[in-house]
C-alpha cells in the first residue's frame, strides 16, 4: 500500500497489474481506499489465503487428502524439487554412515 501511494506521487508503475489498477482507479483513488484493512483489501487478502476450489466444510484430513491426491511433480516449484532430492540424499548418506552399527542389523 505504501509503495502504491508513493508511486502515485511520481514513481513509474512497474507491473501490468499495477498499471492497470492505476489507470482504471486513479481518478477514484481516495485516501480511504488505500487504508489497510478497508473492505476491498480484506476481501482480497482472504481470497489469497484460501486455496482455489477449497471447500470450507472440509475437515483437515480431507483437505490434506485432496491436496496430496492432486499433487503433481510438474506443479512443484524448483526449490521444492531441489529440497526433495536433498532430503533423499541426506537419508541415503545417513544409512551409509550407519550401515555397520548394531541398530542396522
Amino acid at each position: 500500500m505504501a509503495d502504491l501511494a508513493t508511486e502515485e506521487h511520481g514513481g513509474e508503475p512497474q507491473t501490468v497489474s499495477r498499471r492497470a489498477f492505476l489507470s482504471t482507479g486513479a481518478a477514484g483513488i481516495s485516501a480511504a481506499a488505500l487504508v489497510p484493512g478497508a473492505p476491498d483489501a480484506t476481501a482480497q487478502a482472504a481470497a489469497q489465503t484460501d486455496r482455489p476450489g477449497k471447500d470450507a466444510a472440509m475437515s483437515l484430513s480431507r483437505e490434506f487428502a485432496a491436496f496430496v491426491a492432486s499433487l503433481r511433480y510438474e506443479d512443484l516449484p524448483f526449490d521444492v524439487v531441489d529440497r526433495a532430492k536433498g532430503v533423499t540424499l541426506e537419508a541415503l548418506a545417513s544409512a551409509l554412515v550407519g550401515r555397520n552399527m548394531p541398530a542396522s542389523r
Partner: protein
Amino acid sequence: MQEEEAGGGGAATVLCHGNRLTKAGAAFVNAEMILAGGKWDTFRMLTHPGTAILPAALAAAELTGCSGRLFLAGVTAGYEVMERMAAEFIPTVMSRGFHAGPVFGIFGAAIAAAKIQGLDADQLNGAIAQCVNLAAGNLEGARSGGRSLREGGAVRNALLAVAMARHGTPGGETVLEGEAGFYHAYAGNNRGELRYSFTGDNHTDLAKITQGLGRNWMFLETLDPLAKLSGGCDRSACWGHCMR
C-alpha cells in the same frame, strides 16, 4: 532386527546390505539405519522427518517401480503434511511425554507411501485416519537410560495404515480436529491451546494447519545439511536428547 522379518516377503530391500524382507521389515531396518548414521534432516529442532518418510517412500517405490518424479512428489507430500501437522504443536506434544518425531512422522511416512502407491483422496483420508490410531512414541525410556523405539516403529505402522486404507477401510471425517481426535489426545485439546510454544504465543488456530496448502511450502523450512543453507541445526543440542 532383521531376524524378526526373515523368511517372509522379499518385496523390499535393506539399504547397503541388500537383503530382502517384507516391506514393513525393510522399512523398519532402513529407518533404524538412517537413525544410526545420525546425519538427519531436521524440522523445528525436535523432529527428523527423513528418518520416517524416506524408508516408507523407498519401500513403496520398490513395490510399484514408480518414476523418479512420482517418488519426489510423494516425498514432498509426506514432508508437507507432516510438518504442517507438527509445526506449532511439537513442544506441547513433547511436554506431555510423546516423542514428536514418530508421533508426527507416521503421517509423513504414510502420505509418502500412499502417494507413490496412487491412493485416491478417499483412501488418503483413510490412511491419515488409521495413522491417528497408530501414532506413538514416548520419551521416558530414553530419559531413564533406555533406547526408545522411534521412527522405525512409526514407519512400520504407517505402511499398515496405508494397506488398510488401500483396501477401503473407512477412516472417519474429523479424526484430527474432532472432540476426541488427534489434537485432543496428543496436544491436550482441540482448541489450539498450547502448553509450550516456540514463539511464546500459547494459542494457535487449527485452521492454520492447512492455510495456504500447495502455495506456501513449509517443506522448505526443513534443515538439510546437504542443501546450502545459512545456519543450521545445532546437532549437539539435539543429540543429548535423541541419540539414546
